[in-house]
């Protein structure tokens, strides 16, 4: 478990992060500004610093620059709602290990933290400085054997938060099936639509990590502005061309999945990534690749978005390798390769699919086994719109609590929520409502309860416009003995956190409070 410094001027974000990281066993210190962060880091050593980009006073990047002077091996994550391509590049130049765009899912941050901490002590974080120095590797068409150790590809695979998918490499010489180095994958929610990234470059080690981190960070920023494939990849191409030396030659699949329209808009560039759609009861459908060879070599590209209809049950299969001599790249081979491959393969298992590709590639091209191949299978299950939404607005009165509970009961019946789970949900909701009634308003005030059911997850939100509170003064109750329980302090929040899967509290003194709670409902009884 690590000692982590959390620097952010937004208290609710800082508080939520502190809670989830502490729950994972980390020791977490917080600071409200870059200046305070520098002071704390002078007093004690940290293994990881997570910082907001923009804060009053010195920025997160300026603070990290100072910290890195003293502790070059310090691992860092920048998160921001306002990042530009330039700030992402600057962060990577400083050796920042990851760049997350707000709002992010807590699970994404947890996974980023755990992957960065798991990377060995020798791994100093992906750095554009390293990328700029690795001329030999980038110029070399052949790829040396995979470098050993867990750090090699560590920051490249963040868990996709939105779509069911699996990703694996073919079995390597050590019997493992880790995704190949130099290949990266990400799924980003773009306010309804979801963006799927799957890419590859011939770079290795810290360079590969730096490049994938840069691309993911830059695209996450771009997606906030315009998630359409063409503008996003033109912006990415320009950035890579402008900032990366030597030219990184990136192959990339970028797909924008629109759940409402059931459409996948995509661009597939470069010869190290290939893709196909597999529909139930139908043959494979290779995805069309752009004629533009790769991203990052020239400032301008002619790109044409492709569109394909998708529906529930379709699967997107993406194959990637950092090897330049990907055996499906010659056009003649590719056309016959995909149909041959796709009908006979177990589509649920990316590892099995990777093995099949290896086998066919070896037969067809007489090359050695593709030990670096990575395969991702993504279920294109466009998220259905919320199945149910209820909203109850009331002033504090006993009768209204009963109304809220009966609405929750109806939702529970509709979603066939098991009784025990229903009791947990009711308990958590009542705790939040009681908190709002007891603490938000000196007299009486309005409370809104929202209940949303979507994708077998129930979201409960309790909103008041009352006095709010200072999250910094919140401490979990002392449960050694029963002293903590006999006082009012923090008991409800503690219980809510224990009962729900995710909890986030937004509050500021004088500006009200929102308690967001989410609980997965599992599969409905048959």
């Amino acid at each position, binding site marked *: 478990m690590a000692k982590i410094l959390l620097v952010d001027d937004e208290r609710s974000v800082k508080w939520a992060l502190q809670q989830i990281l502490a729950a994972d066993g980390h020791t977490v210190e917080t600071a409200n500004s870059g200046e305070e962060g520098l002071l704390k880091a002078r007093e004690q050593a940290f293994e990881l610093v997570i910082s907001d980009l923009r804060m009053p006073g010195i920025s997160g990047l300026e603070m990290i620059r100072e910290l890195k002077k003293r502790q070059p091996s310090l691992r860092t994550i920048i998160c921001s709602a306002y990042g530009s391509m330039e700030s992402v590049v600057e962060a990577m130049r400083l050796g920042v290990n990851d760049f997350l765009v707000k709002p992010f899912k807590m699970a994404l941050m947890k996974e980023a933290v755990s992957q960065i901490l798991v990377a060995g002590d020798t791994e100093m974080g992906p750095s554009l400085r390293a990328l700029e120095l690795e001329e030999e590797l980038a110029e070399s068409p052949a790829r040396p054997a995979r470098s050993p150790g867990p750090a090699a590809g560590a920051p490249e695979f963040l868990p996709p938060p939105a779509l069911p998918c699996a990703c694996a490499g073919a079995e390597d010489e050590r019997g493992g099936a880790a995704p190949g180095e130099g290949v990266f994958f990400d799924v980003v929610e773009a306010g309804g639509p979801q963006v799927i990234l799957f890419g590859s470059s011939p770079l290795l080690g810290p360079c590969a990590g730096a490049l994938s981190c840069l691309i993911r960070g830059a695209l996450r920023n771009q997606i906030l502005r315009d998630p359409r494939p063409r503008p996003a990849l033109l912006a990415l191409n320009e950035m890579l061309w402008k900032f990366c030396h030597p030219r990184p030659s990136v192959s990339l699949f970028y797909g924008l999945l629109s759940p409402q329209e059931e459409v996948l808009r995509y661009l597939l560039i470069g010869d190290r990534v290939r893709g196909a759609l597999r529909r139930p009861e139908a043959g494979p459908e290779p995805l069309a690749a752009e004629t533009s060879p790769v991203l990052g070599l020239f400032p301008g590209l002619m790109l044409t978005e492709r569109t394909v209809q998708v529906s529930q049950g379709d699967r997107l299969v993406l194959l990637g390798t950092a090897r330049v001599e990907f055996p499906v790249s010659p056009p003649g081979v590719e056309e016959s390769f995909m149909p041959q491959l796709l009908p006979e393969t177990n589509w649920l298992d990316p590892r099995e699919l990777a093995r099949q590709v290896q086998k066919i590639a070896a037969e067809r091209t007489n090359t050695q086994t593709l030990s670096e191949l990575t395969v991702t299978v993504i279920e294109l299950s466009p998220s259905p719109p919320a199945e149910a939404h209820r909203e109850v607005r009331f002033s504090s009165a006993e009768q209204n609590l009963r109304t809220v509970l009966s609405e929750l009961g109806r939702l529970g019946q509709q979603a066939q929520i098991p009784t025990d789970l229903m009791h947990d949900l009711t*308990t958590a909701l*009542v705790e939040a409502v009681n908190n709002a009634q007891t603490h938000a308003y000196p007299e009486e005030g309005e409370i809104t309860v929202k209940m949303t059911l979507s994708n077998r997850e129930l979201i409960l939100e309790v909103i008041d416009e009352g006095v709010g509170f200072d999250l910094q003064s919140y401490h979990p109750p002392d449960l050694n003995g029963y002293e903590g*329980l006999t006082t009012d302090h923090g008991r409800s929040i503690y219980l809510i956190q224990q009962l729900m899967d995710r909890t986030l509290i937004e509050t500021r003194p004088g500006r009200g409070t929102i308690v967001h709670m989410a609980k997965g409902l599992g599969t409905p009884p048959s």
Partner: protein
Amino acid sequence: MSIEIRETESFTALDLQEDLISSPSHPEELRKVLEGLLQAPAGPPHVLINFSRIQMVNVHSWGVIARYAREFRHRHRDIKLVGLNARLQAHFAQLLHLSEVLETYATEEEALANLAPPVSRVERNILWKKSP
């Protein structure tokens, strides 16, 4: 009324009739009953709280029970909990760590077998004055 009260020679049983969650006034109602029993000049020394009819308890009510368990113990009396379902038992023991300070039993008979030996009211008052 969400609490029914029964008296025997050695204990008062509080049969909870309604989930301690469906009304904001429930914890206060429970507090008043326990305070009344604590201050009563006569009556059985111990209290059993019977949860067998309820499914949900809010944290405020748990806090009231924990607080009065301490008060009763200071006076050499006892509160024991009976009939918690598995889910409430999990909240009680694992989430709130209350099993370190309060005992729970499946039935009243089991709880009775583990009650402290009766202490006369006069003796009890003397002990109370001596306790810190």
